[in-house]
């Protein structure tokens, strides 16, 4: 890992050369009280790469995504997304803490799908998807609605656009939530255990949507999941995360068949044969 290149960019949000990673985390640390969630994490994710994060619960997997979504500010370290510093900006050649305004600009590159959907219960499926483009991207209602209908069609929810979340099944809610995240046209999509809150028979329909996204778009994706078969299918790289650190990373065919560390072996054994 090289030193942060503080001298080369003018403003925090200015684009870097193509070869740069889409996501870069350097020595990122986050603790809640005495509990260290991220312990000096280094991570590079290439543009278009699909990275699956596995590991025991409480290991900090979700915190990685929450840091990238700016829901959790790291205690130290540098995070870059799409060539811009996430929590910092350059001022007079110095790396300083980013303003709220700066956060809003760089956050546009990232979108997230949550474990518990977090749909807005007082809005229809359509409005859930189109409110972001209308309020945060400045689209007209007509344009936002048109695009939202397309996206809802893509996730198989075309006939449910006027339903409220309470009228939808868990799988349907999660598909609406995926459409809502896509509507923001992010460069990086974060999926946080998106099937963990679903009834088993509804998992498939949600994974199908993500599978299709993974195979048909060049969006950079980071996924935390316990669905190992699915991980194996879509991941370019699998990270085994434990105790706030990446303890092993490899392409799926490698890590699932020949895990190198005992910790990974034990974990995979536990999740694959329960």
């Amino acid at each position, binding site marked *: 890992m090289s030193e942060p290149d503080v001298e080369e960019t003018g403003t925090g949000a200015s684009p870097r050369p193509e070869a740069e990673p889409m996501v870069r985390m350097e020595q990122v640390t986050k603790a809640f009280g005495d509990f260290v969630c991220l312990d000096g994490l280094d991570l590079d994710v290439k543009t278009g790469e699909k990275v699956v994060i596995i590991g025991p619960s409480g290991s900090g997997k979700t915190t990685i995504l929450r840091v990238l979504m700016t*829901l959790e500010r790291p205690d130290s370290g540098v995070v870059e997304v799409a060539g811009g510093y996430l929590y910092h900006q350059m001022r007079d050649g110095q790396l300083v803490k980013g303003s709220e305004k700066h956060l809003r600009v760089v956050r546009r590159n990232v979108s997230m799908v*949550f474990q518990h959907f977090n749909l*807005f219960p*007082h809005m229809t499926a359509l409005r859930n998807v189109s*409110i972001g483009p209308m309020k*945060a991207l400045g689209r007209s209602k007509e344009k936002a609605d048109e695009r939202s209908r397309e996206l809802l069609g893509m996730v198989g929810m075309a006939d449910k656009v006027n339903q*409220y*979340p*309470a009228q939808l099944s868990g799988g349907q809610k999660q598909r609406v939530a995926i459409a809502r995240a896509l509507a923001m046209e992010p460069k990086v999509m974060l999926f946080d255990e998106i099937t963990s809150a679903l009834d088993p028979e509804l998992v498939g329909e949600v994974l199908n949507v993500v599978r299709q996204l993974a195979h048909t778009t060049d969006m950079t994706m980071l996924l935390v999941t316990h669905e190992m078969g699915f991980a194996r299918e879509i991941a370019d790289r699998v990270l085994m995360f434990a105790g706030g650190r990446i303890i092993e990373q490899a392409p799926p065919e490698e890590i699932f068949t020949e895990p190198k560390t005992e910790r990974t072996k034990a974990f995979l054994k536990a999740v694959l044969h329960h």
Partner: protein
Amino acid sequence: MNELVPTTFLAQEGPAKWDWDFAWEILPDLLEGLWVTVQATVVGIVLALVLGLGLAIARRSTIKLISWPVSAFIELVRSTPLLAQLFFLFYVMPDQFGVTLSAFTTGALGLGIHYACYTSESYRAGIESVDRGQWEAAQAINLTATTTWRSVVLPQAIPTVIPALGNYLVAMFKDAPLLSTITVLELVGEAKRIQAVTFRPTEAFTLAGVLFLAVSIPSAALVRYLERRFRYERA
């Protein structure tokens, strides 16, 4: 006023009989008093709803310089009687700070501020009932703080507190007679005045009570209707 005095009252002995003619005669004055009560309550309600929301939001501010004084103010108002607050506004403000308002304005303001501190606590409960995930989802689609409050949080928070707000509004209406202590001739003040000049308390105070009922019962029904109207299932 003299025409209101029943000619028989000097000769009366024992408990006065209910006099329908007298009741009919004083009704217009009482209605005028009721109108003042309603006006004061409506101004108070608007103030309590708007100021209360402002206080609830300000109290959640991460800036201590805002949240701390707001909390202190709410606690102060909630811990002292409305009557004392009305006297303070009516007598102390002009005396010490040179702020002189009409009795009605002072009264409506006092009611509004007093109840704003109660409604703010209801709003706060409603805001806290909105799931953390809603704030996070709003941030994930990059909504500004203002849009998050307006489009995501308040539309979920307010329906849950409508019953509580409604109860305060009915309570405020019933507290409005305290305004008579600062010379506002609202309904009970008017009844008291009639009693003072005619020495007949029965018709005046009974009618005042009936008129209060005539407003508060439909108001309570309206609150229940609104409660049903804004109810929705949570996702």
